[in-house]
């Protein structure tokens, strides 16, 4: 099997990028973000990106970097607080935003990865999130049709990865990564630690290697904390 491992993010992205493409990105807030790949995406200069991501980063970090450089033209997200530049661009009509309830977003990405074109959910019935969507009654209850999401490229962050592409995530840095990893036929995983095949017990693999086309080392691993809250020593 040819190696999936690339020396760095720029090498892994080479030949894959085009203006107007759709990119799905894992992470929740700044937790479990593919930081290295996002910086490489910025440096590539690719434009008019349609980004699927639960959040939009913060000013100056994560997807906030791509907003500052005006490389994103459309986002599908559930929550974009904590980002003034995003809010400014959105209110000024410079960026197109589709708000999607967080569970619906996760399920739309999951469905896209699993070959399911759409599904019915009660989430969002009667709200702005239901506008323009088919509604159907099941057992007397209202549901709306939500369509699957797929991407030209998916970027995820993992804690450990082996040479077969099997991945393990760390704690709540898992979040959207195990679904985002499935929603494209070109997924790049950025991993904190490469381990030999077999080092991850087969029963403990979170994402099997079939979903991972390329892997890069997490050269940038800042792991910024958005809200540091501590208690005093007991």
């Amino acid at each position, binding site marked *: 099997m040819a190696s999936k491992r690339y020396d760095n993010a720029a090498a892994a992205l080479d030949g894959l990028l085009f203006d107007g493409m759709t990119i799905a990105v894992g992470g*929740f*807030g*700044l*937790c*479990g973000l593919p930081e290295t790949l996002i910086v490489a995406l910025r440096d590539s200069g690719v434009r008019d990106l349609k980004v699927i991501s*639960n959040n939009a980063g913060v000013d100056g970090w994560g997807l906030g970097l791509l907003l500052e450089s005006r490389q994103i033209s459309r986002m599908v*997200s*559930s*929550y*974009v*607080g*904590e980002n003034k530049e995003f*809010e400014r661009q*959105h*209110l000024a009509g410079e960026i197109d935003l589709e*708000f999607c*309830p*967080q*569970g*619906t*977003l*996760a*399920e739309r*990405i*999951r469905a896209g990865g699993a070959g399911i074109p759409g599904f019915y*959910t*009660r*989430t*969002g*019935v*009667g*709200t*702005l*999130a239901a506008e323009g969507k088919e509604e159907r009654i099941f057992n007397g209850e209202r549901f709306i049709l939500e369509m699957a999401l797929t991407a030209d490229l998916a970027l995820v962050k993992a*804690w450990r990865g082996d040479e077969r592409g099997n991945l393990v*995530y*760390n*704690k*709540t*840095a*898992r*979040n*959207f*990564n*195990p*679904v985002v990893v499935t929603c494209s036929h070109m997924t790049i995983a950025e991993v904190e630690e490469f381990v030999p095949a077999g080092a991850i017990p087969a029963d403990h693999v979170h994402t099997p290697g079939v979903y991972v086309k390329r892997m890069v080392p997490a050269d940038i691993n800042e*792991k*910024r*904390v*958005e*809200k*540091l*809250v*501590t*208690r*005093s*020593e*007991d």
Partner: protein
Amino acid sequence: MGWTRKQIAARAAAELQDGWYVNLGIGIPTLVASLLPPGIDITLQSENGMLGLGPYPTKDEVDPDLINAGKETITELLGTSYVSSAESFAMVRGGHMDATVLGSLEVAEDGTMANWIVPGKMVKGMGGAMDLVSGTPRVIVLMDHVSKDGTPKFRKTCSLPITGLNVVDTLITDLAMFKRDNRQSPFRLVECAPNVTPEEVQAKSDAHFLM
């Protein structure tokens, strides 16, 4: 007079039963975790993918890979599990949580609530709120009874874009607690805060409810 934020949270904590799986929203609902009555052991869910939330970390315990849905650093407990966002919301949307406690901007007399957007002013997104209110069998809302300018927040209909239709089961404000038997029933005033009369509660509400 009326209840303080902490007293509102304590009143909500008294509604939770031993063994329940509960999702707590950001703000006053977060206080509920530390105000549970003795003998009540609940498991907290955080929708970013954690079942079994522990207390905030000490300085030495801080782990950037371990946060709650409010993006605050947190700790795990014995028996905690981590899941993906899809799995986390399957728990919520599949009705496996026993209760959710969350804040709101408005609640209508039919249990409809609005808490995610103020058009032109606050445009942050719904996050997981729509999933939580439409998927959880017991929805407990905590909020101030009136807004800063005195406008009732417990209303005939919501004036803001809604989060869910007919989803609220229990409403606790700084003035009173309201409950309904089921989602076909109207709200009933079940308790007033100290030195608050039912007449005052009624005067400060735009909603119809049973006294």
